[in-house]
């Protein structure tokens, strides 16, 4: 049987198609890149251990469930701070410093507001906007309905607007 998670090729394919997404998923939840990568590694190791019992088409939900659980075990009520890198500025265009300041300030406020969103809405919102996953893909990974994804997206945007109202 070649379509088996214990098969090195299949396992590597799963890793290549899902590891970045899984890392992002945990990062969206906890805001800690290092933690997100450690959890991704551990989740894939557990998939390897359980490879005989997990069908390839179930690997996705297995990984997301395990990663989510690992995070729950680790979280010590840390405050979520999402450390995005600074948006690279185009060097050749000499921008008005006042304009640059406003752009950076807006990004800072936006990041804070995203971090302040309820976790469920934040994760869905970022999976869609930053990872460009379709609602159907998000629904499958989180084990919720597509309609629930649409609702969480709506809520996230309405809440974001409120949280950033001062600007």
């Amino acid at each position, binding site marked *: 049987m070649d379509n088996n998670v214990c098969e090195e090729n299949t396992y590597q394919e799963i890793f290549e198609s899902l590891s970045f997404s899984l890392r992002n998923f945990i990062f969206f939840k906890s805001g800690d890149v290092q933690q997100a990568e450690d959890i991704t590694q551990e989740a894939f190791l557990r998939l390897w*251990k359980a490879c005989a019992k997990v069908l390839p088409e179930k690997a996705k939900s297995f990984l997301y469930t395990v990663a989510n*659980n690992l995070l729950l075990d680790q979280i010590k*009520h840390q405050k979520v701070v999402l450390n995005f890198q600074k948006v690279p500025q185009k060097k050749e265009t000499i921008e008005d410093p006042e304009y640059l300041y406003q752009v950076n300030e807006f*990004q800072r406020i936006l990041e804070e507001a995203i971090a302040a969103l309820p976790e469920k809405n934040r994760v869905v919102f970022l999976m869609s906007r930053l990872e460009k996953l379709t609602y159907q893909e998000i629904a499958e990974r989180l084990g*919720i309905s597509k309609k629930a994804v649409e609702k969480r997206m709506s809520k996230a945007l309405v809440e974001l607007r409120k949280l*950033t109202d001062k600007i």
Partner: protein
Amino acid sequence: MEQPFKDDTLLGRWLSGEISEAERQEVEAHPQFEKWKRLVDATDRLPLPAYDQVTLWDRLQLDKAELKKKIGRRRKFVRLVIASAAATLLLLATPFILDRDDTFTTVIAEKRTESLPDGSSVQLNALTTIKFKEPNWSEARSVRLKGEAFFDVESSAIPFTVTTQMGEVRVLGTSFNVFAREEGFRVSCFEGQVLVVVNSDSVRLVQGQSVKRIGNKLERLAQTNANVPEWMSGETMFINEPLENVWKELERQYDVKVIMTSNPQLFYEGPLPHNNLRQAVEIICNSLGLTPTFGDDKTVRIE
């Protein structure tokens, strides 16, 4: 929270483009439209943290190699034992090996996810045991539970049964939570349908419904719209729970002993976080006007 539109999926569908022309105009006419658009555009420009897939893959290969070594050692040890006592042991052990239960267990303060032979998954709350027989799995998907666990069951024509000392749950494919401890028996359905059986009483639950055993009867509880039980997100929610049951859950989530100096009939309504003992005790005590004292010998005295 007030909604900008009656249809609470509308904004979400506007973002994904799955929207009719009339709906699009409705969104664009909204006074907040420009702000939403600006926020979405700015979010889209946020860069994700760098990711080095190759390095992570290499680290994973090391982990896997480490795993192989361990399994190799264990195999050698098993061979040695069998060789040294082959004849007698084998004869005696064969029926035992075939009939052996597979067991998942969690200790105090531990939570764990495991997969069952058909790919169904089960998440165990603290101090919980699950037993099943893997060889029988293709005929009967049957587990015995003591404690609390959330099941996400793969669809199949073979029924999936959870047996406890206090009642039984039968399903075909769905997700549900079973609480079966000395304090009582509760089942909540999060997806699909489940059948809960206690003696001669049985109740069919659909998504969002819960049931609790009272005496020899099953009684329905309030509807919820959660996707998973609260304990999986790191706290237990109580609704009008006798205080002694709340302390029992505390003792399962933290390695402590609670001593009540008096025995008032109190009921608690609220959360019990699983990650901060002091905070958990204080939330409960504050709401009931009690005073906790934390001992250094893993005890909490409540006055």
